[in-house]
């Protein structure tokens, strides 16, 4: 028997080697004229293609690069990785392949660099499929308008600024206002929502990324998430390719008809990296020294997010690009560009953040151009009223600071507004289910919270959620399954809320509100 297996192994190996056909292709080669700052100029390479991969042969092994400038008698290339001992006169071979990354099921749960190489200490990504990093976005015929929601699990966003599958929603704000937190919470909340996630970290500190990965692992989100890291210490070309590589991996799932969420954190650093590459390649600088095609840089990336119609698989790529502003200046070059490309923005304000309103979403300046078509019916029903109340409160709050003798109606609205603001607060890493969100908003707009003291609102809310999950799970299930908030469900919900309120001892007497 042992002899048999030995023969079998030998036989198989022979077969494998017999099947191997070595093909020596004719390739073009050239010589390095100049190297420095991660850029090389190469002579020869007469038939090099745009963004073709180049192999630089040095004495201590090969370095890879990409052709980005095709001139009359030389090629400008960026190096992907350290320069090492590359020197003038070294041989360069064009590999006849456009820059591509490994894609497939195997990339989920991994931490990779923009070239698909592992950064998590695990084995290489084993896959036979490669997708080009740059790809033309899906055309008009293949698309469909956004209709399904992405449940971010963040109350302020799901109610007021709904995001749909296939939408591009910008998260914009100063440093330290919780931009990444929103993106990470959204990824955590995608568990069981049939959504693959890709988080692209561009120019982030490695320590921050390590913390995020640990958090995602802890909450079980790495099962459906890929993290692509081009860290602050990586050369600029890698930062430049990172979001495109992430989108290429997303497109694999799109082509299979699945839904994908991609987070680009952040595109300001991406633009800076591209500026560096462009200036070194001696492309003419424009406003703020960015090259003339920064707009195209981001528009071609974000156009690849889409919702395909069922004839083309029905998949979607939702993207959440992040932009960091300097001192709240949303009118700078890159922020205005990206605002105009995306389908809406979530604006985070430092003032709100310091006041303790977290997430610090400014409901007035944030919009979602897709609107309520990306909400389930139940949410639509309660959120419309809420948005109105929030707007009224904002208007009145400024005005009410001057005097205390307000009429009853105004005072009622102010009190309601205070409770609304309190409800929009939410802890980090604590995303909330849609049905629970709907019930909380429902109890607010129906006035069930009017006699709860403002400082007890969060306690009330937490208690209500717990109570509903324990005793009225059927109602929540109905909302989840049907997506509706019919009269029958409303009645059941009202009853549950009233039952819950009977167990509380901190309610104000009904009249104190007046």
């Amino acid at each position, binding site marked *: 028997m042992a002899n048999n297996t030995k023969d079998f192994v030998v036989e198989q190996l022979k077969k*494998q*080697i017999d099947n*191997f056909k*070595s093909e*020596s*292709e*004719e*390739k*073009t*080669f*050239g010589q390095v004229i100049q190297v420095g700052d991660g850029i090389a100029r190469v002579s*020869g*390479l*007469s038939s090099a293609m745009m963004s073709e991969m180049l192999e630089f042969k040095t004495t201590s092994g090969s370095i890879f690069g990409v052709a980005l400038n095709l001139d009359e008698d030389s090629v400008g290339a960026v190096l992907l990785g350290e320069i090492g001992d590359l020197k003038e006169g070294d041989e360069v*071979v064009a590999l006849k392949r456009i820059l591509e990354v490994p894609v497939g099921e195997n990339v989920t749960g991994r931490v990779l660099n923009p070239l698909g190489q592992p950064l998590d200490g695990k084995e290489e990504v*084993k896959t*036979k499929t490669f997708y080009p990093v740059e790809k033309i976005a899906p055309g008009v015929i293949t698309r469909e308008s956004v209709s399904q929601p992405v449940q971010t699990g963040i109350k302020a966003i799901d109610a007021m600024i709904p995001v749909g599958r296939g939408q591009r929603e910008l998260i914009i704000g100063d440093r330290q206002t919780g931009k990444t937190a929103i993106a990470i919470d959204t990824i955590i909340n995608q568990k069981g929502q049939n959504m693959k996630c890709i988080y692209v970290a561009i120019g982030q500190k490695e320590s921050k990324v390590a913390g995020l990965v640990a958090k995602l692992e802890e909450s079980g989100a790495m099962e459906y998430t890929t993290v692509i890291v081009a860290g602050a210490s990586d050369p600029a070309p890698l930062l430049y390719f990172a979001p495109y590589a992430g989108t290429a991996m997303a497109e694999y799932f799109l082509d299979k008809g699945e839904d994908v969420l991609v987070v680009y954190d952040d595109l300001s650093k991406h633009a800076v990296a591209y500026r560096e590459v462009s200036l070194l390649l001696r492309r003419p600088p424009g406003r703020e020294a960015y090259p003339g095609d920064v707009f195209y840089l981001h528009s071609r990336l974000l156009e690849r997010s889409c919702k395909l119609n069922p004839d083309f698989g029905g998949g979607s790529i939702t993207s959440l690009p992040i932009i960091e502003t300097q001192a709240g200046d949303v009118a700078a070059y890159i922020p205005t560009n990206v605002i105009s490309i995306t389908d809406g923005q979530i604006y985070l304000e430092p003032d709100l953040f310091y006041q303790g309103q977290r997430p610090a979403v400014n409901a007035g300046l944030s919009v979602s151009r897709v609107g309520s078509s990306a909400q389930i019916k139940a949410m639509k029903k309660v959120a419309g009223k809420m948005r109105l109340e929030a707007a009224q409160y904002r208007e009145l709050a400024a005005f009410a600071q001057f005097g205390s003798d307000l009429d009853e109606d105004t005072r009622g609205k102010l009190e309601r507004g205070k409770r609304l603001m309190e409800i929009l607060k939410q802890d980090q890493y604590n995303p909330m289910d849609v049905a629970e969100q709907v019930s909380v908003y429902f109890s607010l707009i129906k006035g069930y919270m009017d006699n709860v003291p403002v400082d007890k609102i969060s306690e009330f809310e937490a208690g209500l959620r717990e109570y509903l999950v324990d005793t009225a799970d059927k109602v929540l299930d109905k909302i989840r399954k049907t997506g509706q908030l019919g009269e029958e469900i409303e009645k059941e919900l009202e009853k549950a809320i009233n039952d819950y309120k009977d167990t509380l001892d901190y309610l104000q007497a009904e009249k104190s509100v007046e």
Partner: protein
Amino acid sequence: MKVTPKQYAQALLDVVAGKGEVEVLEVVKDFAKLLKKNNQAAQLEKILYYFTRLHDKQTGIVQSKVITAKALDEELMAEVTNYLNGIEKGEKVEVSFNVNKKILGGLVVKYGDRILDNSLKTRLNQLKTSLLK
């Protein structure tokens, strides 16, 4: 205005064109003087590089390099040269033969800026990657 090495090379080529050996010697002397005067003598290597390239282009000469692990015998050399001459009509091929033990076996042919790598080393590498897949 700064004169680039390529412009020097083009100028030299234009002046030399159609001249006899004695005249050419004169031209080269003057050219060297000019380079010294312009403090451009350090560029000589680049100028020569462009000069050979421009000259080859004008006269239809293609540089070709054949690398093998062992020195080829006359017969094989003639065969390779014949093959290279047949690639494109109207071009004269200048073949140089080199020996590099690192490629283990087979041969690598460079022709203009094209390369045909048929060395044993590359084929073994290809086999390795295809087996690992």
